[in-house]
């Protein structure tokens, strides 16, 4: 081999030795929450956290501060990286609940704030780390009726076949029960929608039947936001069938799409016609094997 080439590789090798030595001795543990900061972070959260709030740690790979959290604080999301600012603003419950951002540096907070259009509402230093109370600052639709929080107020929930025969679901404690099988219900849960942890309604469709979830627009909403996705178990199933989603308002179909069997959050925002009354969200599938499907969204202005 030409001497120049072997010499070049030798120099690269020496460089790699130096890089390796310096990195692993001094730089490999330079981010994350320090051991001193962790109890301070937890102290803030233990004091300030209220039910319904969500905590977003960044980085999400260092969960050392959770060692000091009080019992009952369980709404911690390690999925902030997956959210767009629009999707994050959907979590905003008109400011009732708070989003907490636990960050290891000011620099990281600045990046997050800019990427997700966050408005800082409060700041609690915890050593070098920060606990920030913030809300999405985007042009979010004001939420008037939440499909998950207000699911109990759905006008009706039922499955219909092609001939129009109906199987009605009935409200049972915290969900619409639609059959004897464990999966046959429409009900709220917190779940991962294409890697984003949030509230959504379980709505497993049935073969060749259409699931209808009907809401009455009693709040005078002029806009609708809907999000749908398959859960992991479903989209990891090869050859799983797509779910056809439709939004019909007072008998007129305003939105129709196929939620493909992939890891994707389908999110649509549509304007409602003046005086819109009955809003029918429908879900149909050719074959229901492992179709773990969820939707969320809201009516707003």
């Amino acid at each position: 081999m030409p001497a120049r080439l072997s010499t070049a590789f030798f120099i690269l090798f020496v460089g790699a030795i130096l890089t390796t030595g310096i990195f692993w001795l001094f730089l490999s543990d330079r981010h994350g929450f320090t051991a001193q900061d962790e109890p301070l972070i937890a102290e803030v959260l233990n004091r300030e956290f209220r039910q319904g709030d969500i905590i977003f740690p960044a980085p999400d790979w260092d969960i050392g501060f959770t060692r000091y959290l009080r019992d009952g604080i369980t709404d911690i999301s390690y999925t902030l990286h997956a959210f767009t600012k629009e999707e994050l603003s959907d979590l905003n419950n008109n400011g009732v609940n708070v989003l907490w951002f636990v960050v290891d540096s000011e620099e990281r907070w600045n990046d997050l704030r800019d990427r997700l259009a966050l408005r800082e509402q409060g700041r609690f230093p915890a050593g070098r780390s920060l606990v920030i109370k913030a809300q999405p600052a985007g042009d979010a639709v004001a939420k008037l009726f939440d499909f998950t929080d207000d699911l109990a107020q759905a006008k009706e929930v039922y499955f219909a076949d092609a001939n129009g025969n109906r199987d009605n679901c009935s409200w049972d404690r915290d969900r619409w029960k639609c059959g004897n099988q464990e999966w046959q219900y429409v009900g709220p849960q917190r779940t991962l929608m294409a890697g984003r942890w949030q509230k959504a309604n379980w709505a497993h469709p049935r073969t060749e039947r259409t699931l209808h979830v009907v809401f009455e627009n009693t709040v005078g909403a002029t806009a609708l936001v809907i999000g749908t996705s398959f859960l992991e178990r479903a989209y990891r199933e090869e050859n799983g069938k797509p779910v056809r989603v439709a939004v019909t308002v007072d008998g007129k179909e305003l939105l129709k799409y196929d939620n493909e069997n992939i890891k994707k959050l389908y999110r649509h925002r549509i304007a409602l016609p003046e005086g819109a009354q009955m809003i029918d969200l429908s879900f149909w599938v050719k074959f229901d094997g492992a179709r773990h499907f969820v939707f969320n969204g809201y009516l707003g202005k």
Partner: protein
Amino acid sequence: MTLARFDKWDWILSLSLALVVLLAVMLTSHLVGLVRDEGFYMRTAETTADYIQFSLDSFGRGQFAEPFSKRTITRYFEFNSEHPTFVKNLFGLSHFLFYKKLQWLSFVDSIRLVAALFAAATAFLVYLFGRRFFSRMVAIASVPLLFTMPHIFFHSHLACFDVPILFFWAATFILYAIYLVERRAGLAFWIAVLFGWAMATKHNVYFIPPLLALLWLVMHFLHYRSLDARHKGFVGFFRAVPLPLWLMPAVSLPVFFLSWPWLWYDTVKRFGNYLAFHTYHVNYTNYYFGQELSVAPFPFSYPWGMTFFTTPAPQLVCFFAAIALFLYWLFGRGRTPVERHIGALLFIGALFPIFLIALPSVPIFGGIKHFFTGQPILLTAGLAVVLEGAAQLARRWPKLRKETAQGLVVAAALFALIVPNAKFVMHGAGFFNALIGGAQGAAENYMQRNFWGYDILPLCPVLNAVAPPGARVFVMGYAEGLNWNSFLYLKREGHLRNDIQGTNELRDADFAFFFYEKQNESVLYDLYREFGTARPLELSETDSVYFSALFGRVK
């Protein structure tokens, strides 16, 4: 191309290095948790040990045919029959000897000893390759540099097929390269035997004969003009075929068949089932730069990127240097046909395993262990280039001996590798190099850092200390955590208290193990909700990045 002799000192040095590797692996075995696969293979080792005992008893009763009857073979070899049994037979034999009979080793170590022996054999092989093709310095230095690659060292512990098949893959190519130079019939025979065992270890090697044959064919016609007269023409063509290629069907296939008793009956059906299992192997979800790889097509860059970011930087430089060297042998001016053939051969042997997994339709089902089989070739040849570079520079300083310069640079490399190896001795499968930012950089980029519940040992003492008698622990079995056998063997090995029960239902559990994998993060959310707390009783971390956690129910 002439190869160096392997003399008495080489035997002493190579065997000493192999012994050091064996001891290093065995003495750190207690730091490496039981991976999911080991649950299956250790169970197989037990049934094989039972088979050995049964055979001895049968022989003692004069029933010499009984151990080979269809009923007996089906009884002892049906479990895990989707994998050939050569290495599992060795697991069983070692378990039978060193645990059941002699009681020299613990249950787990008696089976893991086989993997450690294959690691030692790989050390010998690397020395042999370095010594015969390059220099004694390359031979000596390659061994510690190979085993200070955290993934290689980690997998050297596991009672699995990955390090055995790494050995067989590399050995087939290296010995075949030696054969191309020396053309010794004895060596050809041993290559065929070795290849038979390789086939009876794992199906990765099925690609080798077509690759070798195709390469030979290309080289044959490329250098047709310079061939001996006896190798020309129709008859000469067959005469020119390298002997190992003839012996592979003649010797390797019988060796394969003899190594796997399961195939002795209903051969076609059972072999068909085996092929079908691997042809339609499920894909295990992996994360790669935040992309969830759960269904094909997978990115072509995946195994290349993973190799790039999971190899320590000094060894990575060697990989690139090796590729340059092989290409130089293949295309450089004035190279002989044999040198070109060997250049192409080693290039293929080193990179084909990565290329194969890179094909978008090939399932990704185990991370880098499935494509690191060419790394011994890459490391050794690349180190030869690097040390030649050191020698070139040393010539500028007459007082500096070439060997001193080379020794210093190798010592410096090993010194730099102490810290990462110490940090990742328990999490070798989660090692990422400085180029991506180590554990933190990999986690920041959402790379796969954990798999199959191996990172459990730091959690066990805490569970043992706090769990009330008969407590139930969630083992995450359905989500790529522990499997039942691994859980039972952890108890048998004394890592977990015997009265602690396992469960796969969170709602039945008092405690829960959580093995972090991005694709199974939903388990963590379910766990928080079910237990009413996000507070772990213990975390297993490296550089602040957590790998696994233990939780206790509060509601």
